[in-house]
């Protein structure tokens, strides 16, 4: 059976690549490919080691950081069960494989095989991205090390997803069925709590001293016997990356390989849970595809009352904006995010008046960091716009609307949602520092900054969303339209490169507004003092508005000219 799966995987991948390469006959796609290659070349050249060969990353530090990151990824999988997408079969796969003479174990092997292509590609990308860091033996061995690490991680999160599904579907019966996994997990959690409690006094003491002491204390905490046992699986996944000689690499690889094989056995033996999880994930995938890639509520689940009412009159394309906002308000993830942010806001505001205030302060900085990060990462993840609706291009094109109004409404919905999340995070940060009298900038300046963010974030986010929607319109055959958000630990490398490319484009777009705003401020400040901020901000906003209107007009024309069949957009 493995040959059949290999054939299906290989031919599907090959035909997909051939189909995408055919697009290169279009100058637009060819130009994008050349730019992409130049970008990758820049990454490789830019990442060439500049330090001497002897300067290496301390293996202990690498092990500590790497193991912590892997622990975070594993914990995320257990808490959120995010690996469902690996289980999702396409409607064709369900038709041919589920009803065919294929065992459940065979189906798991097929899905794991398909994931391998993605993991291999991303292992190569990570090798490129990390090529500046002088650790590991050689680039090729590093590819193998990263492949083993990503595969193990992927298997683990898949296994965790099985356990979660089994428990949620069958409760006590599921718990009995998954008893071994649960006992191991329980023992790990107890030991972890014990270990943290044991090391906490030293860590708190180190925290009150200088920064480097804290890292040393962390390393010491990780070195305690119990912590060493707990972090051992994570360390052995990292060690091949840190090896400095072939012998060292070989010695560190086999435990990592053994761990990977153990995970494989664990996952492949999870056939019952797999069947349930796969069925659920496939159903979600099928409905998500039908809805243009937005995850949909379970059948039978009553929709919530509309939070926003659509008025009978007004801008016609406003209906599209409303539709996308409705989709967001009816998503469980969005609702839980809103509730969590509101609750967190109340808690940190109360905590901020505590004389120690450490917890509120940490939450404040985290929220601030997150809000800033979302300027770059947000447009890739908030996708209730053309990227979700392009699979319904037929329907959109039949509406009596000009292209520019469709583009504006679609991008506007995502912009609004992203801005709301950022403003909530900034508000959270503001509340966290509310009782802090010593922080610079002071309360008045912080209030002013918060108000300024309300003015500047929407146009910046709109430009970001227009770039993302423009990419989907320009390259529908290459950009993922519909079918959910990009994600998963396997394609972290791809996502990282995409985020960097997007940040560069957004930065380019913001150069002129920033130059105009900054330049006018410098010119006017000697004359009118701080009041120069007002015309400068106005000028920057005007420039962003002009850029956005130009992009909306251009993308609108593109929308009107896009032929769904020629562009390869098929439902």
């Amino acid at each position, binding site marked *: 059976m493995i040959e059949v799966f290999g054939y299906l995987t290989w031919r599907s991948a090959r035909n997909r690549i051939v189909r995408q390469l055919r697009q290169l006959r279009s100058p637009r796609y060819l130009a994008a490919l050349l730019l992409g290659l130049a970008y990758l070349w820049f990454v490789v050249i830019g990442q060439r080691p500049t330090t001497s060969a002897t300067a290496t990353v301390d293996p202990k530090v690498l092990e500590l950081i790497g193991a912590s990151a892997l622990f975070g990824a594993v914990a995320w999988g257990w808490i959120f069960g995010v690996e469902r997408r690996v289980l999702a079969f396409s409607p064709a796969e369900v038709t041919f494989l589920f009803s065919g003479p294929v065992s459940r174990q065979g189906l798991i092997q097929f899905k794991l095989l398909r994931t391998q292509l993605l993991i291999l590609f991303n292992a190569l990308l990570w090798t490129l991205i990390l090529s500046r860091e002088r650790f590991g033996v050689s680039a090729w061995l590093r590819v193998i090390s990263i492949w083993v690490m990503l595969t193990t991680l992927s298997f683990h999160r898949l296994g965790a997803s099985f356990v979660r599904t089994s428990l949620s579907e069958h409760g006590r019966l599921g718990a009995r069925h998954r008893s071994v996994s649960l006992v191991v997990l329980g023992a790990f959690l107890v030991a972890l709590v014990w270990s943290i409690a044991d090391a906490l006094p030293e860590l708190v003491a180190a925290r009150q001293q200088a920064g480097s002491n804290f890292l040393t204390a962390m390393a010491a905490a990780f070195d305690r016997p119990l912590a060493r046992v707990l972090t051992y699986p994570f360390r052995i996944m990292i060690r091949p990356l840190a090896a400095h000689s072939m012998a060292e690499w070989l010695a560190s690889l086999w435990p990592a390989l053994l761990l990977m094989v153990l995970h494989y056995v664990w996952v492949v033996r999870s056939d019952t849970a797999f069947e349930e999880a796969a069925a659920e994930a496939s159903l979600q995938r099928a*409905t998500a595809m*039908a*809805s*243009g890639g*937005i995850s*949909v*509520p*379970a*059948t*039978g*689940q*009553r*929709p919530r009352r*509309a939070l926003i009412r*659509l*008025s*009978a*009159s*007004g801008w*016609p*394309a*406003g*209906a*599209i904006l*409303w*539709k996308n906002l*409705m*989709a967001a308000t*009816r*998503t469980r993830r969005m609702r839980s995010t809103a509730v969590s942010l509101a609750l967190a806001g109340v808690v940190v505001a109360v905590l901020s008046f505590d004389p120690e205030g450490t917890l509120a302060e940490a939450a404040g900085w985290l929220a601030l960091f997150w809000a800033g990060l979302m300027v770059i990462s947000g447009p890739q993840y908030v996708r209730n716009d053309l990227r979700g609706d392009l699979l*319904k*291009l*037929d*329907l959109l*094109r*039949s*509406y*009596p*609307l*000009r292209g520019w109004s469709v583009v504006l409404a679609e991008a506007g919905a995502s912009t609004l949602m992203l801005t709301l999340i950022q403003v909530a995070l900034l508000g959270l940060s503001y509340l966290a520092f509310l009782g802090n009298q010593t922080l610079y900038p002071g309360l008045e300046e912080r209030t002013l900054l918060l108000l300024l963010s309300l003015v500047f974030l929407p146009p910046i986010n709109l430009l970001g969303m227009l770039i993302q929607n423009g990419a989907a319109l320009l390259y529908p055959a290459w950009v993922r339209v519909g079918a959910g958000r990009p994600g998963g630990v396997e394609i972290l490398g791809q996502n990282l490169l995409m985020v960097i490319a997007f940040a560069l484009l957004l930065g380019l777009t913001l150069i002129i507004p920033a130059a105009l705003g900054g330049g006018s401020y410098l010119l006017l400040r000697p004359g009118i003092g701080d009041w120069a901020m007002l015309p400068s901000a106005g000028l920057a906003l005007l420039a962003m508005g002009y850029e956005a209107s130009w992009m909306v007009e251009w993308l609108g024309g593109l929308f*009107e*000219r896009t*032929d*769904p*069949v*020629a562009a390869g957009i098929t*439902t």
Partner: protein
Amino acid sequence: MIQVDGLHKLYGDFPAVQGLSFSVGGGEVLGLVGPNGAGKTTTIRSIAGIIIPTSGRIEVAGHDLKADPVAAKGALAFIPDEPHLFEYLTVEEHLRFVARLYRLGDVGPRIPGLLAELDLSDKRHALPGELSRGMKQKLAIACGLLHDPKALLLDEPLTGLDPVGIRRMKSTIMRRAAEGTAVILSSHLLHLVEEICTRVLVMQRGRAVAFGSIPEILAERPDLRSRKLEDVFLALIGQGGDAGQP
């Protein structure tokens, strides 16, 4: 009401539609028939403004589709064979959404009657995920007809409907035509075409091979006069042979 002149559509080097010209007046029902790949769907989707023709001119209710697409699209409704619905909007919200798009004002008072007509009253607050395929199709049709289009384009309109739905669909099409709507429908169901279409356009490899009412087409081909409609169709597209010869 619908005027098509010299419609050409190329996909790369492949001609999907070649030099198609026809018109459909108010009250007429034109049936597009032809084998798979004949260009029926491309023709309908070009008239709906979804596909951009390589050349040719399309006019809907007096509006040039290229020069004034918003007015032209505002006068037509396109109902595809697969109902495209938004998974997060309820049945009623779909109707309100369409009303806003087509500037229909407050359709609230009309909604209960419309839903009752479609047997969807108890599904008013349901999401598409809770509807059967037939119900989804009904909702898509209701959305298409809400703005009383002057031109109605239907691609395989009976797909997925049960016998009651089929009868209702046919009577809806005929009633709309009787009220002055120009209707174009594409279908493989020849009995449907024979029953409700006033004229037929038979397509083969992107070209029109016959156009007119069934008696007009038979008048041009006396050799086919005594044959069943299915045989006439097969003969017109060059697949006839002697099959079905009485």
